[in-house]
């Protein structure tokens, strides 16, 4: 397996719901006018609480600081796991599950905080730049690590100077079990030919920026069970969309790509209160049992909470699993 440290330097930011109107211009520019910005990595996720925007430094320049914009202080680097073809992957499980054992668990053990971002195309593991040496030390056994610089992949070897793992400061007991929320709505993960983005522009703007306006047919009691969640990312020219079936119906069917089986996903939201960025092991908590039962999953971290997507047919077993896990923890 190869681990690529991608050539992006990312910032994780959050725009409050009320402050969105101040940022519509840069966001539209980043989404639709690809030729006008040098931003190569952009992800926008709407949750009921706020909008999480992950973007590279070029894109970050577009966002003017204000009271509505919260910025996580550090620079994050995306990692990408590539099976170099040899593993012809008999396992059905995909996404986070696949890398749970090899990447997420070891990093959790080394107390490296990770920020996950799954897309239609691949899974990105974001780590803080300052943790990079620890990451390399931890994973160098398992992976061929490459750092991409200016289009070239340069092999990375663990530096000898970094002897003795520089632990991430405080020993945090990873016994904290966060509450989970499993909303009723079904999600789909989709993609789109970037050239056809203009064709869905109005719908996309509507869904992203006017979703708070009441929609006809959306009854109040349903809102209690369902959760507003919409994610758009445009990374290296690839578009990825995660939306619930309600939102999906607003888009023209022939433009969005999805799997031919039309699989749908259920969400597991982790955290009862904002999780913060320092705690580690949260992703591992969820992905480990999923990997054990060979259930595939998407995982999208946001500013406040983490969200895992699992196939709808597996949701009952996931619920059971999480309950047993909880019992074990508390006992």
């Amino acid at each position, binding site marked *: 397996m190869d681990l690529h440290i991608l050539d992006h330097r990312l910032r994780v930011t959050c725009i409050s719901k009320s402050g969105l109107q101040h940022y519509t211009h840069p966001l539209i520019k980043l989404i639709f006018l690809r030729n006008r910005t040098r931003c190569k990595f952009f992800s926008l996720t709407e949750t009921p609480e706020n909008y999480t925007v992950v973007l590279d430094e070029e894109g970050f320049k577009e966002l003017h600081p204000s009271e509505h914009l919260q910025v996580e202080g550090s620079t994050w680097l995306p990692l990408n796991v590539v*099976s170099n073809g040899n593993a012809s992957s008999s396992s059905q499980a995909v996404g986070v599950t696949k890398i749970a054992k090899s990447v997420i668990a070891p990093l959790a053990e080394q107390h490296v905080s990770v920020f996950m971002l799954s897309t239609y195309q691949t899974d990105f593991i974001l780590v803080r730049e300052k943790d990079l040496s620890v990451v390399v030390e931890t994973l160098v056994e398992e992976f061929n690590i490459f750092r991409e610089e200016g289009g070239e992949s340069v092999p990375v070897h663990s530096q000898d100077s970094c002897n003795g793992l520089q632990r991430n400061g405080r020993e945090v007991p990873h016994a904290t079990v966060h509450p989970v929320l499993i909303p009723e709505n079904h999600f789909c993960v989709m993609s789109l030919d970037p050239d056809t983005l203009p064709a869905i522009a109005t719908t996309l703007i509507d869904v992203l920026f006017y979703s708070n306006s009441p929609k006809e047919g959306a009854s109040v009691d349903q809102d209690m069970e369902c959760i507003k969640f919409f994610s758009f990312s445009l990374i290296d020219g690839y578009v990825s969309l995660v939306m619930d079936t309600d939102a999906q119906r607003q888009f023209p069917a*022939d433009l969005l790509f999805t*799997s031919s089986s039309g699989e749908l996903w259920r969400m597991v939201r982790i955290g009862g209160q904002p999780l913060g960025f320092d705690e580690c092991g949260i992703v591992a908590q969820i992905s480990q049992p999923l990997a054990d039962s060979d259930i595939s999953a998407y995982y999208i971290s946001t500013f406040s909470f983490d969200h895992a997507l699992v196939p709808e047919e597996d949701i009952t077993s996931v619920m059971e699993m999480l309950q047993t896990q909880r019992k074990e923890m508390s006992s």
Partner: protein
Amino acid sequence: MSSGYKPDILWSPHHADRYVICDTELSLYRIGPSGSSETKAGALQLSEETAATLLAINSDTPFMKCVAWYPKHEPECLLAVGHTNGRVVLTSLGQSHNSKSKDLAGKEFVPKHARQCNTLAWNPVDSNWLAAGLDKHRADFSVLIWDISSKFSPEAVPAEKVRLSGDADSGLLVTKPLYELGQNDACLSLCWLPRDHQKLLLAGMHRNLAIFDLRNTSQKTFVNTKAIQGVTVDPHFQDRVASYFEGQVAIWDLRKFEKPVFTLNEQPKPLTKVAWCPTRMGLLATLTRDSNIIRLYDMQHTPMPFGDEVEPTIMERGVQPCSESIISSFAWHPSAQNRMVVVSPSRVMNDFTLFERISLAWSSTTSLMWACGRHLYECAEDSGQAAEAEKDIATKMRERAQSRYGHDTVQVWRNHVLAGGDDPQLRSLWYTLHFMKQYTENVEQKQQSNKQSLIYSGIKNIVKSSSGTTETRRCWSGSDRQTDVPRFHSEERSLALQLCGWISQGPDTDVEPFLKSLEQEGEWERAAAVALFNLDIRRAIQILNKGASSEKGDLNLNVVAMALSGYTDEKNSLWREMCSSLRLQLKKPYLCIMFAFLTSEPGAYDGVLYESRVAVRDRVAFACMFLNDAQLPRYIDKLTNEMKEAGNLEGILLTGLTKDGVDLMESYVDRTGDVQTASFCMLKGSPGEVLKDPRVQCWIENYRNLLDAWRFWHKRAEFDIHRSKLDPSSKPLAQVFVSCNFCGKSISYSCSAMPHQGRGFSQYGVSGSPTKSKVTSCPGCRKPLPRCALCLMNMGTPVSSCPGTGKADEKADLTRDKKLAQFNNWFTWCHNCRHGGHAGHMLSWFRDHSECPVSACTCKCMQLDTTGNLVPSDSV
């Protein structure tokens, strides 16, 4: 949306006259000559000669991303279209009614996870296999190989699962690919390897080019590179692959896949298409975005690298098929040489043939060859009609070399006859050299060596040294009237007249022998003029009469004679007046100058001296007779400079073989390229300075090279001998010595002639002594010399023990063509295996064999000799 799609063009693999333009729809065109009856009114003009007719349009596939044409003959217009959502649809164009096409058209191949289909490629051998390269998906493969003959998937998707795809009629839907390759990796381009149809070359994300073998998909060879936007295999050289990225093209050799053989990168804009020319070896065309220029890289002469350092040479050029508009795409014509059709974004098409670079080569024998594309043209001089156009100087020199031009050292003037005898300048030159030689020989006999140096330095220098001129006024012979024409005499002037050929050797200054020879050659006018200048008007008239009455004689000469006889020296006579005005109408220059002479004032003979049609030697002789000491050098200087500038060989008379002469010859060679005449002429000049002149050495070397290039090796050897006789310093030193195996000394006489030997040569000499057989032993230690590998006799040549002969003897020997040692007896040996023998034996052996005659030796001696198989083209 259509703005995003630029039309691409695709040529039919089997019909050289059909192609498809694809943007949002597929349009099939037929290309044909524009004037033909077939083309209808709707035909689009593609070039001056060709036009395209639209045959069919297929607009069923609006979201197409890539297209590939079915490679088999039947069904002919079947196309695979890759869509933006990753589906691959088979569709047909035109009126193809056969059943196979109907079965296949409309078939759809659906990947598990929708994403853009980047590329499609049919397997060239197993034409049921269609490889599709898709964008990446986190959980899916990016290369799917579909079997188009497979029925719809047995494990059909349950109806309720088709919610999103919305395709209910799954009758033609195939969802199970034959092979899946390349997990979480996008495939941007792919091609099947022609050498092994089970192998597939993929260009994908993560910056890899990878070769998969379908028989074992877990194994792959891959190389990390940026150049992954597209790959294409050279149809003429199946191990050569071009791949590109942005403005960079990398050329790979699949046998040495670790790194590109070389990279072409100088284009600032990203490339949109890269294609090998199917009709021309190693020609790659590239197109960048928004450009109107197609760049061509010619790797025609690329030697495949054996070491890493070898940087192949690539000829690069750009072509602009249509001047105004930018090019969206292009396609090479599959069979017509170097032809392509380009299409602009607005679907304007243009048929275009690249002009091939021409390479040409001159042969050493005046023929010219040039290659253009697959054609080879030869242009040879037309030997049949030599009279019409003047032959090339190289042809002339070749012919002259064959007729031994320049080699007549006894009757030097005859060389101009050997040269063909039709060039007045050469004639003048060789006569000049002849007179010079004649004079020197006479002087030599009389032991008057002080003049010898002067004679080759030309009339210019002779006249300069003139002193003691006397002036005489003579009567017209045959009349007792006193002339007022002064005539000048001096020793130098008469020497000059000798060189001009007017008078012969000795104190006798009679021109009569010269007049006689002119009469014999039928040069009546010239003879008459010479007679007149010698103040013998009666003789002149007599000559003219004779001329008129001779065979092919000109009767006008009688008229001239009559006019001449009316000569009067009265200044204001009618005769004078009429002659001086009418003489200009005379066509013959010599007749003209005769009257000019008679009507001029003494000392003012411009009408004679500057009549350029008159031979230089005659004008000079005239000047020597009638110009005084002040006028003469001025006139000679002026004429010399004129001759030097013009490179007129007649001027050699004036300059002689001096530095001035070399200057003159230089401008002659510049004008004509005749290094042959220059070499022979300058060799005659004995003064060392002239031969040492680098220009002269250059002419001689060039002439020798020329003879070698013509394979006139014997002529060249002859020339070298000739040269060494005239210029002893050019004699090469011995470079090869045969040394005795026992004592190590050279067996040649020069070595044994060393004084310390202290032994007379008569002992080993050839002069009939009983020790004649000793030539086969070393003169130093008397041990036997090696044996010939063929006759097994000890070798040895008489010359090897012959004492040096005097210079005179040597000369005599060569002229008598008597050789001391026949070439057949010479030592020869192979530099590689060191076996050898008598030259004659070796020659006859290698006529039939290529291997060494020594039985255990496998040396291919003859093949090691690059010139050994060439035959001299001059006769021995």
